[in-house]
């Protein structure tokens, strides 16, 4: 099988480098999890963690990113690039509890240290512009209309002091339209100490990676404190990637053979010498496949079996590493794990004026109620009616489903709508969340060059809450939507100028003429003006020609 679904997880972690030189190797670790998914798909999840200091001397933690964080006073950062759709029905729940995957396109949220909202906005802009340059993405287009301040959906993952926490502002921005491609992967690799030249990051090659059905790239930076109060800045870079090949009906019958070099185009080029010295727990590569499947690895690697279904390997420096799995029939799928919620969202309604959104939220569990926050960040030109918001279970309106609503209405051209709804779905039930909206008419210059393609609406974020702590434990994104707005004819302004001018000129001309002209009878006209003179000449000429024509036959 080929890459169907392989998430790769990269994590980077920053910690202060007051440590002795020998222990500095602990500042960086990397590992790769390969997991077979139903439907002959494979999930490859890369994870890189680097630790760095808060001061300005950097080693494994990238200086470029640290400088940006410092310049914008960002204390915690989450940046996600995602492409494709995670098929939860087939593949089950996402790795890392969905924390490392964002919505389609680019999603960014950060806790910025600032005294007030205005300062936070200014720093947020600095952050976006700087990250935009670093990652070659259009993050600078995250302006106030695409920024929201979620209230219930996100909680800081790092350790912040209580007084510091009060000054932190959470800002969240999305770019659903951004295509994620190799130009974003290259800067991502540059942040890694081994730069894709050794270690598991050597598999991350742009040529093959973007063939995947789903892939995500995430960077999470957070401060991590030890119990004695010493703090470190930790950056976690994750890159899950799902790929596969199930284009023929055989897919369900046999497990197709695959190997690392076949899927990624190259084997792993030895281990990265900067990564943590592997131990029993910390291994480089783990493969999660059914117990019956045999596995062949290249020489010079050590195997650690953690469980029958999880086999791990330790790499050595400068020795290529490859994994080969032969074909196996019948198929031996692992049992897919079910996510806490299945979610899908679609546009309803028709016409150019109004529309609606319907989200289908299903709780697959047979015994436990699930509680989550549904977050929508809508552009200002989509004006939802809050009174039409309804949640129904099998056609019946149930007042107990919606627990809480946080709504911040849009301001034209200034900010978008923010809608957070806390829902509780009983076991095995499906909730339909509906609301209607108006489509605004944009100004001529506000349309993109390809206005008829439609406008992308950012994916909804679903954060599953832990019943006890009310903190988010798992997150799911719906797909993005394409909203078509009434599109004008773009030659319109000039037409308008011409038409109004003509009407004005007509009105002016007739009034002016009535006031200035002298009216006489038709037979009282003394001579003609220029026009009548010309007309007279033409008539005379025509008459002359007519006579000449009539004469001709005579002369012959």
């Amino acid at each position, binding site marked *: 099988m080929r890459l169907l679904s392989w998430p790769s997880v990269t994590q980077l972690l920053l910690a202060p480098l007051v440590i002795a030189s020998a222990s500095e190797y602990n500042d960086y670790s990397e590992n790769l999890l390969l997991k077979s998914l139903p439907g002959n798909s494979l999930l490859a999840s890369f994870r890189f963690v680097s630790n760095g200091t808060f*001061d300005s001397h950097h080693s494994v933690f990238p200086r470029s990113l640290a400088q940006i964080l410092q310049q914008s006073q960002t204390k915690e950062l989450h940046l996600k690039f995602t492409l494709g759709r995670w098929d939860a029905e087939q593949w089950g729940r996402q790795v890392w509890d969905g924390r490392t995957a964002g919505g389609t396109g680019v999603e960014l949220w950060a806790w910025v240290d600032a005294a007030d909202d205005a300062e936070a906005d200014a720093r947020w802009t600095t952050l976006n512009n700087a990250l935009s340059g670093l990652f070659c993405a259009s993050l600078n287009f995250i302006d106030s209309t695409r920024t929201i301040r979620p209230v219930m959906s996100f909680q800081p993952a790092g350790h912040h002091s209580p007084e510091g926490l009060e000054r932190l502002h959470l800002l969240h921005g999305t770019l659903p339209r951004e295509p994620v491609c190799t130009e974003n992967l290259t800067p991502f690799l540059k942040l890694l100490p081994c730069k894709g*030249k050794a270690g598991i990051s050597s598999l991350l090659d742009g040529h093959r990676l973007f063939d995947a059905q789903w892939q995500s790239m995430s960077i999470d930076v957070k401060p991590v404190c030890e119990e004695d109060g010493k703090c470190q800045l930790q950056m976690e870079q994750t890159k899950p990637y799902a790929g596969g090949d199930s284009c023929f009906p055989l897919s369900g019958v046999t497990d197709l053979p695959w190997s690392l070099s076949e899927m990624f185009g190259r084997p792993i080029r030895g281990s990265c010498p900067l990564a943590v010295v592997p131990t029993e727990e910390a291994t480089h590569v783990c493969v999660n496949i059914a117990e019956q499947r045999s596995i062949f690895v290249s020489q010079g690697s050590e195997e650690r079996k953690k469980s029958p279904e999880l086999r791990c390997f330790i790499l050595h420096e400068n020795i290529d590493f490859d994994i080969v799995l032969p074909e196996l029939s019948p198929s031996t799928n692992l049992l897919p794990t079910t996510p806490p919620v299945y979610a899908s969202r679609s546009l309803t309604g028709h016409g150019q004026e109004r529309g609606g959104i319907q989200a289908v939220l299903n709780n697959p569990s047979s015994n436990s109620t699930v509680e989550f926050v549904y977050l929508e960040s809508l552009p200002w030109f989509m004006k939802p009616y809050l009174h039409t918001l309804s949640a129904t279970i099998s056609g019946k309106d149930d007042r107990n489903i919606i627990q809480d609503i946080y709504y911040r209405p849009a301001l034209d051209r200034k900010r978008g709508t923010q809608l957070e709804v806390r829902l509780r779905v009983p076991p095995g039930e499906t909730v339909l969340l509906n609301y209607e909206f108006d489509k605004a008419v944009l100004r001529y210059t506000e349309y993109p060059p390809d206005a008829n393609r439609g406008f992308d609406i950012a994916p909804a974020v679903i954060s599953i809450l832990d019943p006890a702590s009310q903190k988010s434990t798992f997150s799911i994104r719906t797909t993005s939507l394409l909203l078509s707005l009434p599109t004008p004819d773009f030659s319109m302004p000039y037409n308008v100028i011409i038409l109004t001018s003509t009407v004005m000129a007509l009105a002016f001309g007739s009034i002016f003429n009535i006031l200035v002209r002298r009216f006489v009878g038709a037979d009282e006209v003394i001579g003609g003006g220029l026009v009548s003179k010309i007309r007279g000449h033409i008539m005379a000429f025509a008459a002359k020609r007519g006579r000449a024509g009539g004469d001709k036959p005579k002369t012959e």
Partner: protein
Amino acid sequence: MSERLGPNVVATIASAASAVAAESKIPPESAASVYRKKKPPPPDTPEGTRTRSLVILSFWIVVITVGLPLWWITTAIYRAPLPLKEMQSWADGRACRAEFPLLIEVEAPTLPDPENLLKTVQHALDDANDFSAHHLRLRLSTNSSQVEDGEESVAATLRLSQGATGSPHSYVLSPSSRAIDLFYSPSYNPTSLSAFVASTLQEIFAEEQQMISYLLASSAPAPSPSPSSGGGNGGNGVKVVNKVNTVEIARKMSRIVKYSPMYHLTFSLFTAAGDPSSWEIKEAVSEYLQPLLDALGGISGFTVDSQIQFYASLSSSVVPTWVPDSEEEGSSGKYSLKKEDLSSFINSAEWPLVSITSYPTINFIIYIPATDQSPLMIPTSSTNAFLLPQWGGVMIHNPPAETDNTHLTKEALKPALDIFATQLLSLLGAPTHPASLPIRLDSLTRQRSAELLVSASSTLGSLYRLTLALPSISIPSSVSTSVSSTLTSLTAACQELRHGRFGDALEEGRNAEEQAEKAFFEKSMVGQVYFPEEHKVAVYLPLMGPVGAPLLMAALKEISRLVRAWKASKLKK
């Protein structure tokens, strides 16, 4: 021919003519004969003529008093008034003649007649000086150490004392103070001593003088004081040095990073493999470089950061060649880099060297080659380092093979940081001469003031030319404020220079430069909307054409009628 046309045709012509009849109220005499059925139109009443004239007049009054101003106001571009004349005179270097009077205090407790010596030396200096803007003034130390407020700073203190018997005149500069210790020979005659003192002082300040004269000359297109115009005496060879060094000075100037009140220093360790993985850069910088940075603090501030980049490869165009030490097979040798390789040594595509600070970054790089390319040498450099003009410095470090290569200690970094300190000074433009650091830093202050003065003036000049060249560009009032602030600062800087208060001059120059840049790079000015003339025609014509034509025709007819009426009344008389 018209007789041959039927009556129907005539009627058609007549009705067609009636539609446009009003266009001409003057009956062409000949036309009357064309139409047979002709009735004269009823005579035009004088009231009718009068009303018509008034109507046309009122239309024109409305157009001129309301329409045109309205059009003008709604389409006008705001251009704040700028002091163009002043700006131009600064740009031409006519507004201020920068002067650099250097005060030198002389302490000569043992000398019998110091005043006389001072006079002779001053004479000799003035005679030899061919660049009058930069001159040395001697003053006998009053021994009273109290410094009045606003007193000009002393550039150097000359301490004259008797040397050992039999020795010639000599002088010593201490590297950490402004004092020049001059030892005169006990068997001296005043002439030889004064000549020696004069040449010593000239030697010490020669480089600075050349730099400043180069700076000022390069700014003003007007003929700069030519070296040949100076007196031919003096006999100290400064002039010869001057000419020889023009190329050298130009080369030096081209290296200098543009002045900024803050610089960001980035120390990067690029290693071709995975080690060394740590270095004591923090300690090394604070020990070896921080004293210099503190000393430079009066001129510019510095922020420092560092990074290690592993697996950093050279760009593919850089291929070191293997040079064996001897002809023997298998002998040791080294990899050497050609001069062309150095210009493309920095692999900017892959090496993350960009900073996001708002002020300029100066990069210092230590490169550790891969083991299969080690030792890597630059044959033309004894220190194995090179300087990239206006950008930073690079040093190639070949760690000794037998040592532990995973960690670079502070001591191992010392040679590199010493080189970087020298490179930093030359990047900032400090003169390489004399040995005394305070004097060099003072020189740097004066040089930077001159540079700021020149660059702020030339920015003003550019702004001046820009506003003249683009009449459709808008000038917001903030630009005008910035320009006037620049002018104030420039004048103040010029004054401070003349009074020898160079620190204040630098401060004013800094402000002038900042304001001038702010004015020139004003956002709303840069973002000028490109609106070509033909588009304007396309927008205006649909309205202006149909409205303007009847108005104009009516006015013309009315005027010609008035003229005829006037002529007729004249004839009657």
